[in-house]
């Protein structure tokens, strides 16, 4: 009972925040509402006993990805007026995509599972069931090669992104620490012997 109430509360906030992401006038608010979306989705996952996925969603998306998004959104000078004018023109595409998503969900729930009657409630979990351990065992035994391949693709992508954007700025003055450490006094300071002035 209580989890059901929680589910509906968080699902309502999730939908409201998701609408806010696309409707808010301020891009910073959009990014923050997306953070709220991630939070609510993560709570719903935790309610489904998938605490590993829930926490990792917050860790990766809220903790790292959205921080960089906010970083960029705050730095950019977005021309919202122009974006907003074009926004309404995209409605046929939007309706098509949303229609397909709704159709796919109905297909899964109603057609494949006999109107939800074929859906089984998940079996109750053992008291010492560890979501994290189960996922880890699966990832490192059964799905070891797919996860390795995914990791490799991500590595290639990040290296490529760095190579594409790496440029040596002209006229920079980088320090060479080894050179600085190797400097000896006689390289820099010249001691000049001068005769002292005669007292008049």
């Amino acid at each position, binding site marked *: 009972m209580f989890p059901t109430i929680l589910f509906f509360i968080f699902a309502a906030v999730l939908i409201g925040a998701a609408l806010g992401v696309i409707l808010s006038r301020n891009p*910073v608010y959009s990014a923050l509402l997306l953070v709220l979306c991630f939070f609510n989705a993560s709570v719903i996952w935790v309610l489904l006993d998938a605490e590993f996925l829930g926490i990792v969603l*917050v860790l990766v998306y809220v903790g*790292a990805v959205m*921080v960089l998004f*906010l970083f960029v959104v*705050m730095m950019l000078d977005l021309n919202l007026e122009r974006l907003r004018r074009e926004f309404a023109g995209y409605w046929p595409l939007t309706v098509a995509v949303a229609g397909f998503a709704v159709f796919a969900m109905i297909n899964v729930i109603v057609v494949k599972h006999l109107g939800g009657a074929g859906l089984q409630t998940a079996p109750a979990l053992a008291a010492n069931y560890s979501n*994290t351990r189960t996922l880890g065992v699966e990832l490192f035994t059964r799905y070891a090669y797919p996860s390795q391949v995914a990791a490799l693709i991500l590595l290639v992508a990040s290296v490529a992104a760095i190579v594409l954007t790496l440029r040596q700025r002209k006229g920079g003055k980088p320090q060479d620490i080894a050179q600085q450490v190797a400097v000896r006094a006689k390289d820099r300071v010249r001691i000049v012997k001068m005769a002292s002035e005669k007292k008049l």
Partner: protein
Amino acid sequence: MWDWTPIRDWLSGYITPYWTFPALTVVQALIVMIGIILVMAVYTLAERKVIGWMQLRRGPNRVNLFWIPGLGQPFADVVKLIFKEILIPADANGFLFRVAPFLALVPALGIWAVIPLRPEHAFANIDAGLLYVLALTSMGVYGIILAGWAANSKYAFLGAMRSAAQIVAYEIAMGFAMVGVLMASGSLNIGEIIHAQRGLFGWNWTWLFPLFIVYFISGVAETNRAPFDVAEGESEIVAGFHIDYSGMAFALFFIAEYVNMILISALTSIFFFGGWLSPFDGWLSSDSWLAQPSFFWLAPKVFFFMFVFLWFRATFPRYRYDQIMRLGWKALIPVTLIWLLVEGIMVYSHVGPWKGHP
């Protein structure tokens, strides 16, 4: 902090058992929060005193409490801050400007839910405690970014951007160091991480020494403390992200920073120094009180690392920003990666503390 059964029984006479659990949890959370805020208050005084002594000054010694000179200083500061007006700049984004201090403080206090302060006791003994800690520490940056942006000031914004880039960079090294801890104990549960450490030289700091160093340095950088305090950078950008905050709004950022310092100290002592385990465990017979795990073994470890924070601040000059980035990306991350490989080989070949590991 003690046996709650009689209180639970007493409570259940008044409210249904369904509500005793939340009621008790709220009470326990309040006790820990108030305790931490008090420690934080004394910590601000300790900072000024310790740095003062290191620089051959006296530190605050005017406000007496219990006839101890200076002990009343934090409370005098609080009274002053409460009665100051909270100014909101005319061009600031009012809503985010007001929300930002809370976004900084709430994650800092929320992490304490999974920290076991005494043996076998944490408010939320959750399975993925380590991940929860990582997720919430990475949340603290939102308060700083939003404060910098909402104030609509260039100095504040510069501070916020510096802090965001720095925290994201050091989070990676911190996460890798935690992966090492996770490999050593084979669990994400903080209680089990402590239990996996055996004896003074079997605590994680011996076998994971490089990871311990990396973790603590990243922790100092994550809390924006000297020598990584470019987000505040008094000499360059005045006070960084909280330049436009006054009164209690400023104090909330201040509290969040100090609570985070206490937290990093607590986590370092839990992950690498055996938490509430006794250093005499295994040397003295197990029925000796000195060998018993207790809160009184955790506290000195935490206080030591809190002292190290102050020591750093009094000793090191501030890093330049590109040097901070180089240290984070080019020194700390490779160190953790190499040590994870070494540790993996050690675990695989059952040497050291992993002898007899399945």
